């Protein structure tokens, strides 16, 4: 009916754009990270031919990531922050998603709007809100001293790991709840009724039917939030000024904007990207699979 070349033709502008402004830039990172530094101008010299690649910087970065190296602490800290934030997000997010998907009844639509809302409020705005609340004379301190939980106001914003982790949770948990909700909502009621019919208690039904069936959603949501978290540098900067809470993203940011050594920054980025490849591949596979579940147009 249509000429066969019409469809690739439609796709061409977008593909060209993505090649020029996504693939080429990605290669530029690799070329700089595997490049050299001009000794006079102290500028990075990208090497485009893989045959010329200088693995020196990459090795240097990997070296620094080893125990005892300058990046080791940051790397460990990043993994710990992300891990704890993920666990906390799941602990809070799963019950919320579960309730909305399965028990909410008439309030379901309202709750859906309320949990989708934060996704559209600027991340910066949401962090700003907490900066206000966590100030020395902010509501949090005032409430906690008033109820005598604290004897004096605490400096939440002065380099506290707990603040950073809580900020990460606050910032990213909406991105976890939504896919979790979707997965739980998809579970056919008849499966649960069948389990009950066959003698399973509510808890056993949850454990043996609901939880396994939601595993894909848990995994998907977990990947969805850990990917950006690993690259996050702004959250520690906003809720904690101190270098003692910096994450890997801050290192990259530093070498580009303050340390004047983009090559190291690029090399770290390469390492980070490789580390995240597994997660990214899994995420892409789930999107791809979700799209394939519908009949071909």
């Amino acid at each position, binding site marked *: *009916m*249509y*000429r066969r070349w019409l*469809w*690739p033709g*439609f*796709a061409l*502008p*977008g*593909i060209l*754009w*993505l*090649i020029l*402004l*996504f*693939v080429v830039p*990605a290669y*530029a*990172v690799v070329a*700089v990270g595997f490049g050299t530094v001009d000794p006079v101008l102290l500028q*990075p010299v*990208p090497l485009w031919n893989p045959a010329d690649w200088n693995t020196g910087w990459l090795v240097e970065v990997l070296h620094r990531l080893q125990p005892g190296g300058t990046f080791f602490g940051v790397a460990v800290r990043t993994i710990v922050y992300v891990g704890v934030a993920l666990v906390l997000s799941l602990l809070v997010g799963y*019950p*919320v998603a*579960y*309730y*909305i998907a399965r028990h909410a009844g008439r309030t379901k639509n309202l709750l859906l709007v*309320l949990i989708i809302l*934060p996704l*559209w*409020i*600027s*991340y*910066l*705005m949401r*962090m700003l*809100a*907490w*900066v*206000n*609340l966590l100030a020395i*004379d902010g509501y949090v301190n005032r409430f906690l001293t008033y109820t005598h939980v604290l004897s004096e106001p605490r400096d939440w914003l002065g380099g506290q790991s707990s603040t950073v982790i809580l900020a990460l949770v606050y910032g990213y948990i909406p991105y976890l709840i939504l896919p979790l909700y*979707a997965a739980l909502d998809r579970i056919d009621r008849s499966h649960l009724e069948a389990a009950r019919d066959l003698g399973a208690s509510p808890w056993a039904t949850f454990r043996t039917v609901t939880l396994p069936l939601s595993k894909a959603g848990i995994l998907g949501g977990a990947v969805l939030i850990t*990917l950006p978290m*690993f*690259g996050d*540098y*702004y959250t520690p*900067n906003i809720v904690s000024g101190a270098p003692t809470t910096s994450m890997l993203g801050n290192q990259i*940011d530093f070498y*580009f904007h303050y340390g004047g050594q983009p090559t190291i920054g690029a090399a770290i*980025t390469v390492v*980070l*990207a490789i580390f995240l490849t597994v997660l990214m591949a899994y995420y*892409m596979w789930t*999107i*791809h699979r979700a*799209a394939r579940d519908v*009949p071909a*147009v």
Partner: protein
Amino acid sequence: MSVAAERPAASISTGERVRGWLRNPWGRPRFLVLVTWTYVVWSIVPVLIAVQFSFNATRSRTVWQGFSGRWYWGDPVDSVWHDPTLRHAALQSLKLGGADVLVATPIGVLLAIGLARWRGWGSRPANFLMLFPLVTPEIVMGVSLLLVFTHVFTFIHTGTIAQILGHVTFSISYVVVIVRGRLFSIGRQYEEAAADLGASPTVALTRVLLPLLTPAIVASAAVVFAISLDDFVISQWLSSGGGTDTVPIVIYGATRAAPLPSTNAIATIMMVLTLLSLALAFLAWRAFTREERRASVATEFGGFTV
């Protein structure tokens, strides 16, 4: 043999109901209700408080001292209206948002249609490529774009053009995902019917497919606008300093220095704009697909039936 007739329990008395609840306050639904609403409050109230403080009468963001519009337009120096930094930032954000919509939406719509129907060998890698920006952490994209403008496309310097190019790059995939969902709902049948009735391929595309895609196009435009307004990382990495700073960048700077309630004010303004555009898109979607919903044609939006 007589059996003592037992009176079946017709209803449970209130006392019994309360006792039942108390005996198990951790009964699942109750516990979940508590957790859920606590989460919702914890999630939204801080933002509401921030909005509230944008109307504070004094410079404090932590002590409420009365309602005032000074941070929006009143204060001759520091209000959003008067402070050139804030005004420029707002304008820059709107500029980027508008440009992003105008460029990313058409490219994305074409890409969505092309990818959905392309059967050749190139379609798989093309699809793969389209998904990549969605999964890439923003800092990686920021680094890569900065380096490409410094070392490859050196005729483009950091600044507005670079920011627009960056925004479009991450926005295209969102358009594709949204439009693709709508394409699957529609299927091929309407274009085939049109061709059957004598419409040339061009007419089938423009007079049948495109009108049917309109809700998705409008929705994706609104989404692109929203994510562009809210973008921080790409805008920051491709910014060339004060004149090209967007609102999120200004907020970022302010939270690390000494924020005034005017920061809250401009953040509030951006938030309202974003939410308005999304609400409009949602309403437009509902309006366009009202007829189809009544005829129970599936109308899925990113996995949710609306």
